[in-house]
């Protein structure tokens, strides 16, 4: 059944079809994880989800994402790959265990989605990062994994920064010259694209003409928000400095494979056939209507090796609509508005907290 979903275009299912499909899949995944992951079964028991009737996607137990930092949750003994979160802001990292079938589904999901935004042929690729991240085995992190993952969609890879994260101007200009007027692919992490690519180009007064370039960027809006750079500012500035017009943002998290949300030409993130988004009230955790701001819950039918099919994130967002985005893609489309505010710890326990 899951396999079938990949024979369609990734943004093709309409509301009713999608709901029926996801509901069936989630029910069987929930039963599967209940039988194969002891901790998950205990959670369902303690939170009163045993013998629960699931009539809608909102009825499932949403596992708080942070739990993956504290427990090694898995539903398989045949782990072939362990993903870890970058863990830049916290000392502990999430550990996500994949077996072969789940890893394959994850790859398929990514291919399906990327092909929707790119052509099927591999494009010359400029990676907005340093090659050094691949060398350092200890730091083979989410960052390296992200670069590796996206590299599959390109060819003739060139890295834009040297080991010290300085702009490799010669390499970039040579790349531009070689693929003049050709479609090219660029990828980098949002903050680095901004700081080490855009700002450096600007500092060197260097304008590029990558008019047919397609830029994908992901992760780490937090730092940019601190610098008060909005989505629109980002896109506009990049276009001005580099000529790139097609700019797509990714939203997703290592804790949920298959949930790859890419922003369309109109700036909205889209849910593919095999994933879904719900928004919940931050206080009551009840599901909210479209256009209401709340906590993002993520649903994906890909995680079978670990109980990550329904997750409660700590991100705020709104669902803008469903099936009717001007870009033509079906499914819900949404926006991320940032992280939940740190609960103001009003107690006597942290004189020097934050140190």
């Amino acid at each position, binding site marked *: 059944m899951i396999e079938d979903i990949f024979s369609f275009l990734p943004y093709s299912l309409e509301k009713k079809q999608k709901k029926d499909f996801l509901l069936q899949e989630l029910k069987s995944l929930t039963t599967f994880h209940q039988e194969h992951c002891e901790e998950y079964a205990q959670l369902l028991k303690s*939170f009163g989800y045993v013998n629960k009737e699931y009539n809608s996607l909102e009825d499932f137990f949403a596992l708080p994402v942070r739990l993956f930092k504290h427990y090694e949750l898995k539903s398989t003994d045949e782990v072939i790959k362990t993903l870890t979160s970058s863990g830049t802001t916290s000392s502990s990292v999430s550990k996500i265990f994949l077996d072969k079938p789940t890893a394959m589904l994850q790859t398929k999901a990514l291919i399906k989605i990327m092909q929707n935004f790119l052509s099927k042929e591999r494009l010359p690729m400029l990676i907005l990062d340093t090659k050094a991240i691949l060398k350092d085995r200890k730091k083979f992190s989410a960052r390296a994994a992200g670069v590796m993952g996206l590299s599959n969609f390109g060819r003739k890879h060139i890295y834009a920064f040297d080991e010290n994260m300085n702009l490799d101007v010669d390499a970039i200009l040579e790349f531009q010259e070689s693929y003049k007027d050709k479609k090219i692919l660029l990828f980098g992490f949002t903050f680095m694209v901004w700081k080490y690519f855009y700002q450096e180009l600007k500092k060197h007064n260097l304008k590029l003409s990558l008019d047919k370039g397609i830029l994908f960027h992901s992760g780490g809006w937090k730092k940019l928000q601190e610098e008060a750079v909005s989505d629109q500012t980002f896109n506009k500035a990049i276009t001005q400095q580099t000529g790139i017009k097609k700019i797509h943002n990714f939203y997703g998290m290592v804790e949920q494979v298959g949930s790859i949300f890419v922003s369309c030409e109109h700036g909205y993130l889209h849910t593919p056939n095999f994933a879904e988004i719900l928004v919940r009230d*931050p206080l009551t*955790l009840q599901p909210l209507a479209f256009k209401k701001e709340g906590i993002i819950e993520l649903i994906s039918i890909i995680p079978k090796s670990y109980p990550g099919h329904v997750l409660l994130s700590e991100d705020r967002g709104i669902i803008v609509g469903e099936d009717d985005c001007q870009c033509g893609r079906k499914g819900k489309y949404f926006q991320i508005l940032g992280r939940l505010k740190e609960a103001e710890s009003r107690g*006597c326990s*942290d*004189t*020097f*907290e934050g140190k």
Partner: protein
Amino acid sequence: MQILTPDINTIKEIRLPKMTREPFGEDVLQFIDRLSKKLRKEPKYREFEELVALGFWLRSSNILKLKENFFNKHEKSIVFPRGIVFHIAPSNVDTIFLYSFVLSLLVGNHNIVRITQNHTPQIEPLLDLVVQELKNYNKLYSSTILIRYGHEDEITQELSKHCDVRVIWGGDRTINHIRTLPIKPTAIELTFADKFSFLALNLNNIKLDDSFFEKLYRDSFTFMQNACSSVKALCFIDATQEQKSIFWRDFKEYVLQKAPQLEGKNQIDKLIALSSLAIEKKRELSFDTYVSYISLGNLSEIDEQKHCGGGLFYEIDIKNLTELFMYSTKKHQTLSIAGISKEELQEALKTTNPQGFDRVVALGKAMEFNATWDGFEIMSSLCRVVDVDI
């Protein structure tokens, strides 16, 4: 860094008199009385419960009681202020610095008070008031260093060199960190570590009315259950399942009406805490908007670390207070009690030698500050006693 009093710009300029003042001096009593009156009467302070509570605590009848107790206690000994006291108060209970400062001022010490840089609606008017009132008393003004700074070790280190007593109002990490910065060999330190607090209750002797729930609400939801004395664990003596169900149902309803200001992250923190406890203790729980609880099998399943505040309760059945006292550790601070007689309490205290609990109070009083705190008689601890044998 900002020095609020006196008129100096850098910590290098700090000069404090060698001579201390006499305990309960007239100018200090006046200063405190003026603070108290303003805090209780002026609308700009009255809107903050914490400031009103502070004003109430500073009222002259209470201060005179402190004076009487102090002199009674030291009637037969000779005591002097220790000298210079450096107070390091937490960044999120805005009023602690003042309680600490006032107790030290009363016994005659000079003070250096570190104040957080967090700007909150209640701390700003309070600071303005303190500075303005201090200006009326030249000697107090020039010998009180109110300094506002963040986490700069260099400043803490420099100020630590001056003091004869360093008072650190937690938490554990802060205490451990600040202890790496030396004080004079002759100086001493008072530390208030992270603590965890309980309510023991016997439902057979309690009427579950609004007055009862108001007290419970105050003792748990003030400071969003993050204070050391906030009730976090409920120990039921001799209660049936049905009695407990009714109790929780009614408490939930009461808090729902009160609708305390919880934030989004708080709910997630509670979910994480409850999920972790569910996985580790395999117990039943109830997750709700305001009041969530997990039924633990026995006292040893209590996990102080995992408790995140914001309306999370541990429910435990105990046979009697003795059981609780036998279990208690140094991490346990306040025991609130309800539906339990004084005799029962005294009997349990007499027959056990509890490791923990620095306070036992009637339900509703957990949040009241007292000059005896965490096992210290704070004023006496800020004095030295001269032994005379001639």
